[in-house]
């Protein structure tokens, strides 16, 4: 099957404007602006069944239709803050097939009546930001962006904006605050961005991969898109495969492809041919799906099916864990990440990630007791449902599912009774070891 998003794998020069045009580039945008109303564009996307690829899976066309038409101006923001451990798909799309992404952003802007759109890139994508600036300048020169496009009344400008190293800015309202020049901390919702977004104005925020789908949906129609994937999850997805596999990387596949096909057919199987112990299907924010039955690997990867395994597909960043990994080590890694990335605004997340990291560190370094495992589980469950945004909730997923589904890993890491209290020098010695 040829690619829909990762088209640079078949057409290596597709980042070149002439090559992109030769392959049908910008026809969908021009057609939308000259022959369709914004509502018609939104309807096609609605009918295609396209859902947000950033993790939440919200229907894209529906999000666009929520934009408040009584309050102007409108904005579109592309969420290119890709920072979830295990996710590296948006970067490849923007590096390899940037014009399709930019065309999708232009179409989204037209659909919601925005004359300006921002691309919020994580600061680490510094070189990519400069590259996109070049592409935007080329499009302006070509008359695809700018004032009164294609002889009509519609005008559009695209701008890149670099973040500066904060996972939380991938949360859409934190992203907006950051774009406004503030610390990236989530806002209380509602109101949602289509009502009150950037600078208090109606704003649509979409993930890069979501946006990159749009030009081909408009070119080929909603039915074409729906013919791929499953009834619940239409179309294709870029799966970021990482962890203990022989060939990690991005694989664009229809929704409904099984874990087995991804890991064994595309990913070349597990390193050293070891068995899969667990899968994290949505990066570090995932529940740990236990692979204690061959049938788990035959589960189709779509939103509904993954839920039957006690997990979420999220951004489809599949981290493969083999039987050499102990879950106390893994949870120590994920909690360290969330503690570092907690923005500090709400108490359950700020304090919860801090205490969870202290307790898991104790457990992982052999200084924990059975009571510590219970305490860790207790703290995680206390946090659930109480945090301002999803980050706090995400931080508890691996903790709770790790302890509940892999109890032996934790039992083996702790001693039943408290260890003798060490003096400072002894403790420092242990920490170094």
């Amino acid at each position: 099957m040829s690619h829909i998003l990762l088209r640079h794998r078949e057409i290596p020069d597709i980042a070149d404007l002439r090559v992109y045009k030769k392959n049908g580039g910008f026809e969908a945008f021009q057609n939308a602006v000259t022959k369709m109303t914004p509502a018609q564009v939104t309807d096609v996307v609605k009918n295609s069944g396209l859902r947000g690829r950033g993790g939440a899976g919200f229907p894209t066309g529906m999000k666009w239709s929520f934009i408040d038409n009584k309050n102007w101006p409108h904005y579109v923001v592309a969420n290119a803050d890709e920072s979830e451990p295990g996710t590296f798909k948006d970067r490849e799309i923007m590096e390899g097939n940037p014009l399709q992404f930019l065309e999708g952003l232009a179409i989204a802007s037209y659909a919601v009546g925005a004359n300006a759109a921002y691309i919020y890139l994580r600061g680490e994508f510094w070189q990519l930001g400069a590259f996109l600036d070049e592409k935007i300048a080329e499009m302006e020169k070509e008359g695809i962006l700018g004032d009164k496009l294609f002889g009509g009344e519609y005008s559009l400008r695209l701008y890149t904006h670099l973040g500066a190293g904060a996972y939380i800015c991938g949360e859409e309202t934190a992203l907006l605050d950051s774009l406004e020049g503030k610390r990236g901390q989530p806002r209380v919702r509602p109101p949602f961005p289509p009502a009150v977004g950037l600078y208090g104005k109606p704003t649509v925020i979409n993930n890069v991969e979501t946006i990159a789908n749009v030009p081909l949906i408009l070119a080929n129609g909603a039915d074409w898109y729906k013919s791929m994937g499953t009834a619940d999850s239409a179309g294709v997805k870029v799966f970021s495969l990482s962890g203990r596999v022989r060939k990690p990387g991005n694989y664009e596949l229809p929704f409904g492809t099984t874990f087995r096909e991804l890991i064994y057919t595309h990913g070349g199987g597990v390193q050293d041919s070891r068995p899969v112990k667990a899968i994290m299907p949505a990066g570090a924010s995932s529940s740990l799906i236990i692979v204690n039955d061959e049938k788990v690997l035959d589960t189709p990867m779509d939103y509904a099916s993954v839920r039957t395994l006690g997990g979420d597909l999220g951004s489809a960043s599949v981290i493969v864990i083999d039987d050499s990994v102990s879950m106390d080590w893994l949870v120590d890694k994920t909690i360290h990440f969330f503690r570092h990335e907690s923005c500090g605004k709400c108490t359950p997340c700020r304090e919860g990630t801090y205490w969870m990291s202290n307790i898991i560190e104790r457990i992982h370094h052999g200084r924990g007791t059975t009571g510590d495992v219970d305490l860790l589980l207790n703290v995680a469950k206390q946090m659930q449902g109480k945090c301002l945004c999803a980050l706090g909730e995400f931080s508890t997923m691996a903790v709770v599912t790790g302890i509940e589904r892999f109890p032996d890993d934790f039992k083996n890491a702790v001693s039943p009774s408290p260890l003798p209290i060490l003096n400072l020098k002894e403790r420092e010695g242990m920490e170094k070891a």
Partner: protein
Amino acid sequence: MSLETKYPNEVQQILSKYPPEHRRSAVMPLLYLAQREEGYLTKAAMQDVAKIVGITETDVASLVGFYTLYHDKKEGKYRMQVCTDLPCALRGADDFVKSLCDHLGIQVGETSEDGFVTLEAVTCLAACDKAPMFQTQGPDGIKYHENMTVDRTMELISVLRRSGREVGS
């Protein structure tokens, strides 16, 4: 010398991206510009940025403290920021960092004696399939180095020392 005197075109170009009544949005790109030469933000630089966008110096300092790519202390000319998050660690990132420490004779968070390299362990850089990997943050901006070995990293450092800049940037 103020940022506006030194880089008038860049400052204007940055401000032009945002609506004139929302100058504050320019604070982050201006901080990158102010950090370019010294590799960190001096108090004077923060005051300067605060003045351009019309917010308080405290506000600016709170941003510098919040975002990890801004620095308020002088460290090595190049910061080597190795990702040690879960997916990278599953591909040997922790051993890679330990081995780098041995070769450089410094610990994570420390700077080499000649002030050239600071070694840091950081969170996910969206390159999980190409671990071990790190980015360098220095006068030439930020650059990724993927599928790295310790030997290739030491070679990169010696090339940087000789040439004074990233090759290919």
